[in-house]
């Protein structure tokens, strides 16, 4: 076994962590209240996540794409790695944080 090869299982999770590390600081920097609006976040993310997970399940079952067992956690839920479910929460959240940060940055510029 190659030294450090155990880290390979974290390859997908590392990408999700990178996205969160890149976007969560926007909350403090632009004083966003996004994370405090729990209900609004649920309403925004849950239906979209369910829709895309549904697509993902069908596409994975149909063999459109597959996931490398060596680079994901061993746990599978309905054939998808756990990271894939997290993807559909992390990416919409990152998108919303980016959108709100841009909105604040633009309004600051307009009213200095």
């Amino acid at each position, binding site marked *: 076994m190659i030294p450090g090869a155990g880290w390979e299982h974290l*390859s*997908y999770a590392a*990408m999700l962590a*990178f*996205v969160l590390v*890149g976007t969560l600081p926007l909350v403090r920097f632009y004083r*966003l*209240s*996004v994370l405090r*609006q729990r*209900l*609004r*976040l649920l*309403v*925004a*993310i849950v*239906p*979209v996540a369910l*829709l*895309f997970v549904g*697509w993902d399940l069908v*596409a994975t079952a*149909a*063999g*459109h*794409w*597959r*996931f*490398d067992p060596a*680079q*994901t956690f061993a746990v599978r839920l309905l054939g998808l790695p756990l990271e894939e479910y997290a993807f*559909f929460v992390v*990416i*919409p959240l*990152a*998108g*919303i944080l*980016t*959108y*709100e*940060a*841009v*909105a*604040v940055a*633009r309004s600051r510029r307009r009213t200095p």
Partner: protein
Amino acid sequence: MTSYTAAAALAALVAILVDLFILRTALLRSGTWWMAYGIIVVFQLITNGWLTGRGIVRYSDNAILGSGRIVFLGNGRIVYAPVEDLAFGFALVLISCASWVWAGTRTRATR
């Protein structure tokens, strides 16, 4: 053949219809959306390049315009990822942001 291509194009179309006509959030007509998307798409290329370049996610020859052969650019791929992923990402982020803006008018909350 190219089943992911068709699904991704359909998803992008549905996202556009949701934004403009179903939720009527019209993000596509706002500069804020396009500036945000410009930032997001750069990071999508980086993070998706990681997922596809390393083969964390692998695509079937039959599902995409290109083949299963992973190259940086060409063979229907951009930064290792099938071009279809751009439509997929666009749809996912647009529907998420549109839902967020729509939910903001429903949950009495301001930013």
